[in-house]
């Protein structure tokens, strides 16, 4: 088993980082009725771990008896709100009425809670919120013997929900609060609407500091019986971008690669990160249509390999910034933000990443010529 999973704290008491939050949560659920919760924080900070531990705290070990269900839900949609995702779908023109929409959704559920990822449905997420979640929220849990009279819905990636879906969500939160609690989990609370945020207890889960990460790594090393040189540990922590998960994973990768650790052992980067930094090198080396075409091919490669475009853009920016003169940094950051925003409004991510690359090339080329003639 991977170390990330092996050494994941299962209860709130065993938390190494975020102990304070864990204690507060424990107090909250044991003494009071639990409010809706919104966990937000960067990836790898420990949101999911906290949630799972919290569930265990609330329902006991029964919360860990999960089953996976991949089910197609039939949702009746009134016709006027017909939405078609891609242009090759034939737009049916018909009379007013309803039609059935098939939504496939994977849920992870125990008797006490259901965990789902509504944003998987793309912009049909609204129907998931309106129909499925409502349906789940309505029914009281069967297990009435349990002390809790409600069940919990864990919604992941709430920040990726469309605005419509979030609007639908807030009504559900109020109406069915008697039988159901929502635990929302997301990376950025800024993309969750004000209305939803105000209905939840917001729990900010910070990224662990590097010291904390090193502590965790040392803890794991001790448990595994490995001797971890301090230099390596701190380098892993530094490279992890303050994501604990990433740190543990690369720690294990180091272990797989070479065991008796050496002080200056290379910490292998993620495959796609390496690819992105290659792209950045390509871009800085030459600014020409030909190079742009090459970069487009590489970007496609990343996207086809399921790397989310936002992450690609972010990583690309940080790689570019490493190579830039300070006077350009501000402008480039501005454009990156600009194109990222547009990317979220649009649908075809590659267009916007390419536009960013083209913009960068044009700025950089101009800059080079002005500076060096």
């Amino acid at each position, binding site marked *: 088993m991977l170390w990330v999973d092996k050494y994941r704290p299962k209860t709130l008491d065993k938390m190494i980082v975020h102990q304070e939050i864990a204690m507060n949560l424990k107090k909250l659920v044991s003494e009071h009725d639990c409010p809706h919760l919104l966990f937000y924080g960067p990836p790898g900070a420990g949101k999911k771990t906290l949630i799972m531990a919290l569930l265990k705290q609330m329902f006991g070990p029964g919360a860990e008896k999960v089953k996976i*269900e991949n089910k197609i839900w039939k949702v009746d949609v009134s016709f006027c709100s017909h939405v078609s995702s891609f242009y090759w779908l034939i737009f049916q023109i018909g009379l007013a009425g309803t039609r059935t929409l098939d939504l496939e959704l994977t849920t992870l559920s125990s008797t006490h809670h259901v965990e789902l990822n509504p944003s*998987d449905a793309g912009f049909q997420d609204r129907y998931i919120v309106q129909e499925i979640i409502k349906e789940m929220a309505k029914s009281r849990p069967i297990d009435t013997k349990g002390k809790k009279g409600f069940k919990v819905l864990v919604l*992941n990636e709430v920040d990726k929900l469309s605005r419509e879906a979030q609007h639908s969500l807030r009504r559900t939160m109020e109406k069915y609060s008697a039988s159901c609690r929502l635990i929302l989990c997301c990376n950025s609370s800024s993309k969750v609407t004000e209305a939803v945020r105000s209905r939840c207890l917001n729990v900010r889960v910070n990224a662990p500091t590097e010291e904390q990460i090193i502590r965790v790594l040392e803890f794991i090393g001790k448990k595994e019986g490995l001797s971890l040189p301090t230099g390596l540990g701190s380098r892993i922590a530094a490279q992890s971008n303050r994501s604990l998960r*990433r740190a543990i994973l690369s720690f294990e990768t180091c272990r797989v*690669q070479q065991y008796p650790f050496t002080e200056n052992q290379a910490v292998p980067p993620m*495959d796609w990160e390496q690819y992105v930094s290659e792209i950045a090198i390509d871009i800085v080396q030459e600014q020409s249509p030909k190079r742009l*075409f090459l970069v487009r091919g590489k970007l496609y490669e*990343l996207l086809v390999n399921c790397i989310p475009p936002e992450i690609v853009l972010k990583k690309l920016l940080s790689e570019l910034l490493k190579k830039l003169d300070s006077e350009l940094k501000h402008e480039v950051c501005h454009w990156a933000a600009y194109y990222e925003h547009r990317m979220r409004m649009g649908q075809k991510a590659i267009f916007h990443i390419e*536009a960013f690359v083209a913009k960068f090339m044009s700025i950089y080329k101009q800059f080079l010529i002005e500076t060096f003639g």
Partner: protein
Amino acid sequence: MSDIRKWFMKQHDKGNGNASKPEKPAVAASQPANKSTPPAKESGKPMHGAQESSGRKKTGKVAAATTLESNTKHKPNNGSNIDRSPAKRKNPVDSEESHDNVKPPSAKRTHKGDDDDDFVLSSERKDSVDEVSPPKKLKSGSGRVGKKSIDVDEDVELDQVESPVKAGGRGGGGRGRGAAAAGGRGRGGGGRGAFMNFGERKDPPHKGEKEVPAGSPDCLAGLTFVISGTLDSLEREEAEDLIKRHGGRVTGSVSKKTSYLLADEDIGGRKSSKAKELGTSFLTEDGLFDLIRASKPATATVQEVSKKKSLEKANYPQPKSSPIKGEVKDDGKSLIRKCVGKGLLPAASPTKQKSQTNIHDSLMWTEKYKPKVPNDIIGNQSLVKQLHDWLANWNKEFLHTGQKGKVKKQNDSGSKKAVLLSGSPGIGKSTSAKLVSQMLGFQIVEVNASDNRGKADAKIMRGIGGNTSNSIKELVSNESLSSNMDCAKHTKSVLVMDEVDGMSAGDRGGVADLIASIKISKIPIICICNDRYSQKLKSLVNYCLLLNFRKPTKQQMAKRLMQVATAEVLKVNEIALEELADRVNGDMRMALNQLQYMSVSQSVINYDDIRARLASSSKDEDISPFSAVDKLFHFNGGKLRMDERIDLSMSDPDLVPLIIQENYINYRPSTVGRDDSGVKRMNLIARAAESVGDGDIVNVQIRRYRQWQLSQVGCLASSIIPAALMHGHREALTAGERNFNRFGGWLGKNSTMGKNLRLLEDLHVHVLASRETIIDRVTVRTDLFSLLLKQLTNPLRELSKDVAVQKVVDFMDAYSLSQEDFDTIVELSKFQGHPNPLDGIQPAVKAALTKAYKQGSSSRVVRAADLITLPGMKKAPKKRIAAMLEPVEDGLPVVNDDALAESEKENSSDAEDQDADINGDKKPQMDVQSSKSKGIHVELDLKSTGNSKEKKTPASKSKASQSAGKGGRSSGATKRKR
């Protein structure tokens, strides 16, 4: 003089350029030969220069002619003018003597060279003496001057005719000139109306670099050209256009009538070999230009006169060669037409004609010149005949069925009671139906799309209804009465159902009703449609005799149009009419309408008028997204009107933006002037890219929020702006790429991405199902993959085979990864230019892994829902079934193993009948899996609570172990079988 010197300089440059160009060995070979000639030439030329300059002093007009001539003269620096000179000579001969194609035999040429010398000199003298010469004379004079100069050149070259390799010399000439011209003129002229063709023909090497000359509109009249291979600077369509504009004719293959084979390089194809066989002369593109330039009219009046003259000539052969079919029409008219045709043109006749036509002016030409007898119909004569036969025999066949009707079925056309005429609009289907019926004395009842053709009301089928369809029914069934009565006048009738494919929503059951009518009909029925393969007509087709009208050829049409034109005293040459026929796509009606329209404003119509007139109408046809993008990005794309651009990008509002997005990088924008560093281009690309992004955002608004009113904005942002910024020359970015627009890559990439996302989701579900982790999908890819891949492949690379395989399989089991997931991980970790993650793993190890995994699969609990096949169901159920998860460590697997061991022991005794059982089973392995899944069923357990759970559900557990045991047994058996 300085001009001439310049020309000489250039010539030398050209020579050098040729030498430096190593592309053609032939050129190089002929180089020495060329080198040897200049002295001879130079000795000849200064004298000319003197003559010319003297000529220039005398009169400006002549000066123009001579400078032009100097153009033409210096150009032929090597073998090429051997081919061209006959052309020069032939042209005047044509225009002066008669229309008869006097084919100058090659032997005659050389003689003439000598003869002309004296003659030319005299003419030159005459020119310089006659200061004020009548325009006509001047024209001929200038023509002669042109001829003369060539001839003198020929004189020079007659000496060297033997030395140069013919083909090589010609090629060199063309190339050299192209290079020289390019320096002077930049990217100016070319590329008019060029379409990118997708054939394998190469782009012209000097595309758009030469100035396309303009000559008198009829300088090529009577000449027939065949174009072969790639020309130097013109696209084939452009060359055709050029020739046609100057009155020449372009045909597809070489025949005796062919005057020139237009080719810049001898590619040795069929055309060139045929041409050599027939003695057809070759002509380079430059030669063609010279032909045209040479004829450049000195003054407008000359042009006018010559045009008129040659027009008559062009018209002249036409009526004579073709028997006039329309002669059946009013005699007076045809007589006049004959007069016109003969070119006699008595002074009185035009006015007479005018007065006559004035009477009919109100009539549309399409009505006026409608064929009056079936023979008038252009083309499809055999079909008309067939229709005629069918109609003539109809009564015999079907009405007197009592006696002999059924027996008589020898000819196919008689066997069907109705006929279906099909073909594109305007080619005379309705007309032929009417004419044939008229000729046979049938009375026509026409029902077309303007009538309601719904199903007849069943109740009043026999009665008289207001409904058309009822009256049809009535008509169809009542005919028996009239024929039975057998009156003296005996009006037979025929039902013409026009536009049957137009039977639409309003005409419910129309086709079915028509079929029913056909079945009971007592009169012949003629159905007419445009598209025979239309879905609506599928059932009708079985009941009809199918006659498919084809489009008449353009020659046929032009012939007919010429008759009309002459009847209307309209001056138009045949080439122009052929172009018209070509443009209207075989639609005679449209051609006539266009002609009439043009006749209102002008009495002389030439090729360019027709082109200009129909340029707009030809646009209505469907254009592929590729040609739309080509046009938008075309060098002259900036000159398109806005509505044209919108039309182009709207031709396919989904694909055009994608193709544009894919290709905009490839264009070198023509709006940027000098741009050494490429900064401006990069800026434009950035702007175009942003606009493409805008288009995407607008598209989301359109599709997601149904803001369709934004579609114009969308196409503006996604297609027009990028194209407007970037239009110019396309260049290939990668080596070996064909310089055509690629298809948009987004679609393919997106679907691959979708597939990979699905695979990743499967993997994610499996990983989740192992309950070891609570990671989400994105993090699985971004964070977990590297480690997973290392865990899965590193042991295979480093450890010994068995240990490694065992380790990997254990790891896969721990995360309930299937073989497919393994592949997914490998697949999604592949990056172009990076080593394949599976490199360095021996195939044997891979095979062992597969084997080991398969082996383990019998004892492996079903982890994920999608692996289950239900017994009794052939396909996996569409809806995934909740998976049931058993902890690996406790309970079941142990039991499983025991059972396996036991069953192995048992099996040794009764292996035979096990085998038999399995043979009977089609997919033993599958069955095992499914039975197991049934046994285990929808319960799951946690490690920690596993024991208590086990107690709770002993039944299911035992069932599970039983079935597992069974599975083990049978799999053991299969193993042994192997």
